[in-house]
């Protein structure tokens, strides 16, 4: 017989495990490791004995720290670059005229903060409120960060990338 806390934890795990795993798997090139790290995030949740079940923003912030512990500083960026390169290679440039590779190139040139905000918004699909929770700031500050990151992206991207129509 499981206690209420266990039930709550299992519900949380069912609800969010895939998203946390995806967050990590978007950023490193090792699926099995991504799964282990996602499991670590949930171990932390369990062991922290939080008063309330955490939201996805909190889980993502924790996943970011777990990733950060695993891949320090530049290593973390290299992981992402590898991940993006691998993706560009396996998903076939033929279909998108190298657009994916071009975006990857732009992303690697952004600073960590801008890149992370863009990835959180468009890959992990966090809402502004979740983004704020993940970045530990107010929703309006999160919206501003996204706004700034978008500006940085537009600035870093070659003109053809910004105007070309897909398809």
């Amino acid at each position, binding site marked *: 017989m499981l206690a209420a806390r266990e039930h709550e934890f299992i519900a949380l795990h069912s609800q969010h495990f*895939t998203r946390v795993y995806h967050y990590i798997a978007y950023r490193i090139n090792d699926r099995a490791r991504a799964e282990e790290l996602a*499991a670590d995030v949930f*171990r932390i949740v369990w062991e922290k004995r939080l008063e309330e079940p955490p939201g996805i923003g909190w889980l993502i912030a924790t996943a970011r720290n777990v990733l950060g512990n695993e891949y320090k500083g530049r290593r973390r960026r290299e992981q992402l670059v590898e991940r993006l390169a691998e*993706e560009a290679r396996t998903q076939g440039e033929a279909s998108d005229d190298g657009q994916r590779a071009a975006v990857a190139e732009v992303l690697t040139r952004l600073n960590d903060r801008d890149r992370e905000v*863009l990835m959180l918004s468009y890959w992990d699909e966090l809402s502004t409120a979740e983004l704020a929770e993940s970045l530990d*700031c107010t929703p309006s500050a999160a919206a501003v960060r996204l706004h700034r990151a978008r500006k940085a992206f537009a600035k870093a991207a070659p003109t053809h990338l910004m105007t070309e*129509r*897909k398809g």
Partner: protein
Amino acid sequence: MDRIEQLMKDAKPRVGEPDTTPGTDSARSIVFSTDPNVVSLAGRTPARRTALRAAAAGLAVAAAVAAAVVVGGSLVQQPAPDPANTGTPSVSASPTPTATPSPTQTAGLSTNGVACTPANIDLRRSTQEPVTEAIPASQQKYYKVLGCAEGWLAYELSAEGAQVIGGDGGDAWYNIAKLQDNKRFLTDFQQPWASVSSWKFQALNNDVSQNGQHLTVQQAMDQEFAQKGIPVEIRPQLLGDGPAAESGTGSPQSLGAYTSPDGRVSFNYPAAWTVQTKESSTPGAVNLAVKDASGKKLAELAFGTQGGGLGGSCGQYVPYTVLDYAEVPLPYNEAFEGVITPRFAYRAMESNGKVLASYGLTSTVGGADGKACLIYNVVNGPEESPIYMFASGLQMTAGLSDADAKAAGVLVFNTMDEAVAYRNSEEYKQVKAMITSLKIQGRDYSVAK
């Protein structure tokens, strides 16, 4: 969906479902990870590995707890729940200026004989072969017309709409449409005038602590109108008057005022905060602490104490950075060696892998060549108060332990980015506004000996 969003989503790595089935078994393996009979991670991981992984997780938790203590040890309020291992201070939940524009009645509004309604707006997206399309009937409910005049129309997309339609930053911009020859309004996203920052963003973009601009939100909005070729004179008809002028400069909306019994020392503070005065053995001396609504101490003020030179020794010089400063017209002792004009400063020291930070009035620089070991948040004052302070704490020393930092009113951050982020918080803005509002009247001979 706009171009950047589309590019990002197209470039999103394809990641399948995890092998771990979310929920029951894998979750139980965590719940019962101390039970040697339970094979964790859906049976893929050998038991010895489990033990190692559990140990690693334990370390991560220890790190998380340590970080929580760091945050708790700073002046900063702990958000609950706090993400593991992040020391980012919580941004206080004080109200940001309500940014809802209150333009004139929009129902039945028209300009140049055309009704200003979402049904009459066409959108031309920013793509290589732009197509002009009316806002679909099913989506019109997400658009709200804010105002119109002289063939221009301003409207916004609700946050819900931004989510449903797939746009982004629904609350960040107001869109602008221009009446065309075909008697329809058009928002051409390739034109600069297609959108302007919302009132809320004008306030944030013109944040004094960030870029030193002293524009009101109205001035900032008008500037953006002018830059984008939208007639500035119709701004009130399109977007209303905007939030109260003072909120654009980060000033607290509702202020309390403190004045010392002898009238010499006064300042303003947010009405929700409290001022706690302390008894002083020196007649006429002012000693007080300012706390926020939750009772967290944000600043201490001491004025009029005669004795007590500054002490403190230090051996370690570490890099320090001035993250923000603003000169404040206050009395100071020009004869004091190395004195600079009194100013509010927010300074950070990089010490032992952490960032220590404190804010307050000062009349001395932190140190030469970007290095400091002891930073004083005091002003070398006039005769009646040779030193005075209004700061998070009196001094900050390299190598402070977390507990000492807390006692000394020093904030502890994990990274410089976090220290910078705090500068953008509402709490910081309010504290800065309070400290820089300090006024000290000229020497009062009835009090001086």
